[in-house]
């Protein structure tokens, strides 16, 4: 009927400042109404907004895909909320500190009724500047949340020295090089930094120009928009995480006959370990860019706008995941060259 309702997923380890951010979003004077799906009642309560309690019930799908899990409670709640469309402009899902964001995200791709009416806007992760480095060592959930994020709020920066802050950002970048990073105190971040991101929109992937794709040589001739507060790091890879890696590959034109079977096979085989992937591909004899993104085994791809005359036809891919065979993925991607 009308446009799909945008859904923002808010994650973050215990005590990072998720509820502070949520309350800030809800109390700011923006004239918008939200439906908020929370795990614990009581901590928030805003008169104009609908607040719904959830149970984080993660269901496996009977479709032969072991990593294909969805949030059953979310399907039911969104179905209920859609009966009261018009009462709100957007949905925010707050997950518990120990939650894996993947089932939440997959719900929006796997369930037809949900995807007909709502769209995932972005996964926003709040990280504690002081404690994140320690949590990355002892809490796999915290690492998942960083790896999965489109937007990362590095909160409580007033509690750390500039050196400590640089270290925690380096560790975040080692796991997730493409998320947009914001430094905050008491989760004070402009609303537009967390809402309306369109991070899962294939068209928007073209605009994303994260640090990992940049080299000094070709930095200047792209037509991208810089996000405010987006911190660029010239030198990535100072920090290395033992279990969570990202692989980014750039190459020239790609043969779709080689690429499609390769990417399908890779995501089917390595899907449980690949948390997110994104790419922009220059296919041989194709005037349009092929853009794709994925969550575990679920891939979504389409031809998007034309390459500009004179623009360098370059393919770029990134994979973020657990225990990835970095060299095999790099070699596999390069073997798709036309």
């Amino acid at each position, binding site marked *: 009927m009308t446009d799909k309702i945008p859904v923002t997923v808010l994650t973050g380890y215990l005590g990072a400042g998720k509820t502070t951010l949520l309350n800030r979003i809800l109390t700011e004077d923006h004239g918008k109404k939200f439906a908020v799906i929370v795990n614990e009642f009581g901590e928030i309560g805003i008169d104009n907004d609908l607040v719904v309690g959830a149970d984080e*019930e993660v269901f496996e799908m009977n479709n032969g895909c072991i990593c294909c899990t969805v949030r059953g409670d979310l399907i039911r709640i969104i179905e*209920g909320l859609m*009966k009261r469309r018009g009462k709100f402009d957007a949905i925010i899902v707050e997950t518990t500190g120990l939650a894996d964001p993947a089932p939440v995200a997959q719900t929006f791709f796997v369930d037809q009724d949900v995807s007909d009416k709502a769209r995932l806007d972005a996964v926003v992760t709040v990280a504690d500047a002081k404690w994140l480095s320690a949590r990355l060592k002892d809490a796999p959930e915290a690492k998942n949340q960083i790896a999965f994020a489109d937007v990362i709020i590095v909160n409580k920066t007033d509690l750390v020295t500039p050196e400590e802050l640089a270290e925690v950002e380096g560790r975040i970048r080692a796991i997730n090089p493409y998320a947009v990073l914001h430094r905050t105190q008491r989760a004070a971040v402009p609303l537009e930094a967390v809402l309306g991101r369109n991070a899962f929109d294939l068209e928007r992937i073209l605009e994303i120009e994260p640090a990992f794709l940049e080299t000094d040589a070709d930095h200047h001739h792209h037509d991208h928009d810089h996000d405010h507060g987006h911190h660029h790091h010239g030198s990535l890879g100072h920090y290395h995480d033992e279990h969570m890696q990202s692989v980014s590959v750039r190459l020239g034109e790609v043969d779709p006959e080689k690429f499609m079977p390769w990417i399908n096979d890779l995501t089917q085989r390595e899907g449980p370990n690949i948390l997110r992937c994104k790419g922009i591909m220059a296919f041989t004899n194709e005037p349009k860019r092929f853009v794709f993104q994925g969550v575990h085994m679920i891939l979504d791809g389409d031809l998007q706008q034309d390459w500009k005359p004179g623009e360098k036809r370059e393919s770029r891919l990134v994979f973020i995941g657990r225990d990835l065979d970095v060299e095999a993925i790099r070699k596999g991607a390069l073997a798709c060259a036309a």
Partner: protein
Amino acid sequence: MSVQAPLTSLTQQVVPVHAGDHVIATGFAKDTALFALADGTVVAADGGETRRIAAHPGAGLLVATLDGASLVTGGDDGRVVRTGADGGTEEIGNAGGRWIDAVAAAPGGAVAWSSGRKVTARDEKGRLRHWDAPSTPQGLCFAPKGYRLAVSHYNGVSLWFPNTDASPELLPWKGSHLDVTWSADGRFVVSSMQENTLHGWRLPEKADMRMSGYPSKTRSFAWSHDGNWLATSGADAAIVWPFASKEGPMGKAPRECGIRPAKVTRVAFHPASLVLAVGYDDGFILLCRLTDAAELLVRKAEKDEGQVTAFAWDRKGRRLAFGTEGGAAGVLTLPG
């Protein structure tokens, strides 16, 4: 291209009812058609007259069912409310502000609802019994005879006798079960599943049966008056499974009624004949006769009024009430 006889139309026999919001469910209480709306209102239509009853003031209504004499609604205010033909409302349950996820009613006056994992059964005398399901139930259905409830949840359906302390009997099947229905002879329990399939159990052996091939989820079931057929939504026709034999539909193909380039969202069997009301996601409504595949038009597709979300025949089968997602509603009176 093919030449088809124009569809016989009953559209002149329909009296529209202005609902104005998503119709969750409808049903007849005595001669009054009741419509439960998502904005918490119950609309009572009696002939040309309508009354609006605030069943859930200031709240939304999520689920509703009819118990023969009244409409039972569950809201996002955690209240379970009974609304009679006279417009009187009575709160019969309260889950303390948590959403009511499912309701069911038995003809004798017993009611059940669930909120989160907690299932509550209320017998005709108002006595309450509770049971915590292993995961949040999505569907509830009373057995045709006796005080027993089928509860669908993740990884199966549980059959619960609310008046005993025995733990419910589990009909296991992996996956997320949505709505559940029980055949009139009590021999079959059928659930719809997240993966666009149906799962059935033949009782008491608990023999499994799978009914698949749907392009989307089944969210509406209807048994024929003779118990021989189960009509279902979720495809571009009503899919009608044969349940006449002891084995149920095992190894048999279903019938398809009312094939159109639209998705069937609601089905309702006539209470005394093999005529099925079929509602689609474009608002179109047909009556299909199983015996000769004859079709009658009740309502044309209406832009912006959304899918058909509610259906009910009155007890004698003279009138059919319907409602849509976009807030349109009406009552068809059969000629003669």
